[in-house]
């Protein structure tokens, strides 16, 4: 058996299902064209909003990608830290320091600014 994860799964499925049901309780009013107009202050939009959206922070997204990887190492490290002691401290310290260099570099290059 799955143990606690079984309960977690059940809870997730139930919450999603019940919220979907709750949302479905309200009937869909407003099916005519003027009722469906996206609202931005009283004028209809000239084009569809779905377009090649220029996310200004793409550089940050790539840095996030690298850091997200790093998190994977942090979890097992945290568990064994107390037992491994100083060596774990130094190893992770070095690892993090290297990554902090990356953050510092990105910051200096303006990578966190809106392009």
């Amino acid at each position, binding site marked *: 058996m799955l143990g606690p994860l079984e309960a977690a799964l059940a809870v997730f499925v139930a919450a999603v299902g019940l919220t979907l049901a709750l949302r479905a309780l309200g009937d869909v009013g407003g099916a005519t064209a003027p009722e469906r107009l996206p*609202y931005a202050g009283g004028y209809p939009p000239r084009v569809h909003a779905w377009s090649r959206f220029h996310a200004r922070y793409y550089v940050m997204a790539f840095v996030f990608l690298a850091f997200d990887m790093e998190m994977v190492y942090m979890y097992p490290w945290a568990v064994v830290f107390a037992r491994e002691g100083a060596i774990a401290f130094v190893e992770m310290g070095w690892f993090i320091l290297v990554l902090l260099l990356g953050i510092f570099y990105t910051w200096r290059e303006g990578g966190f600014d809106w392009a």
Partner: protein
Amino acid sequence: MSRVLSRIALRADARVFCIAGSQSRDEARLLRLAEGIHLTGTPRAANVLLIAGELDAGLIAPALVAHDALSPPRATVWWRLDTEEALVSKNFPNAFMEDDLDPVPALRRVHEELLAGQREGEAPLLPDVEPAQWQGIGPYGQGGKGMTGGVPYGRPMAERADDRDGLKLDYLPVRIGPLFAPLPVGLALDVKLQGDVIQGAAFENLADASTDGTSIFHRALRVAVLIRDLELARARSHLEWLSDAVAVAGAASLSERILRLAQQVAPGDGDAIRAVERTLRRRGFFDWSMRGVGVLKTNALEGVSGPVARASGLSIDARTKEAAYERLGFEPLTQDAGDAAARWIQRVREAAQALDLAGQAGDERTGGSGAIESPRGLLTDGAGPSTATARLVPSLVVGMEFGEAVATVVSLDLDMSEAQPLDNHVSAAS
């Protein structure tokens, strides 16, 4: 089941989307303090539309769009505020008419009647016509040809334009306003959005130009009025603006408190306002939120007067030329930064100064000379300060993130009804 829900829902605040004609802004703003109703920022969240006063001709069409965006069952209340014309009643035939000074009972009644099923929800007012012919066109009948052509689902798709970081992605031409809650009534901002950054901007003023306002400042153009009353009105105007601006910054409850304070201040209450300044500073409104946003250099300020000019370091104030103010020892306050934070601080300090002046003024009078320093700047016969200030908007917001642009426009304190109707286009600079 639904009857039980309706009975419980009776206790809820009525969700009201309020559209104020540009002459009724002050009355409409006070409804934020009312109990039993809740003003929403978007019509989707409301089912009662409140129209305050007579709508400007340019606001009728947008108001119809807002009406149809309400979630059904919907109703309209027209709070007449003793207007004579009847643009509203012509365009909103089913509107519940309210002549009373306080529209809240009428709003509650409509809300309760809707819930009890005694009042039928209004049908949409605009014709049920798709924006363009699309059904059956294209290989799948979706209205488009090719990858980006046609009008899928009745609307064209965005086109591409160069951007400042060398990418060539789509831009969205969008009209924000004139009934977009954070912006001043009547200001329709036409922006070209690439991502959330504004690449080109223009605006149209949809408010009716009003040459003869009813405020004490308009009266002071012709007759002498008590400085005490004039300065009190100035402080109120600044505080009411502050209440709006704080609400756009997200702090609804603080906004309410400031609006209440605006109603209660009396001549000599300068210290109460200085306490507000300290509160705002402590909470980060100046340093976190508005510092460095929308910087105005003095050389860009042609024709601009009032707090906007003084926050950029120009010491111009029509009051300095008046003997009465000289007797009171009036000195205009200025600041150097010229950013949104400076404009916020400028108005708060001027409100405090105005209350101090009002406290000392005694029976001194001013006015009648055809020019007066209004809260927004120099007001003369037939020309208000907002004309020049509004002209700054397009060039100022280009290159800004959307929220920054909204904060900048709010910090200018525009009254579109005193700005000349104009159409000002500025495109992307970079």
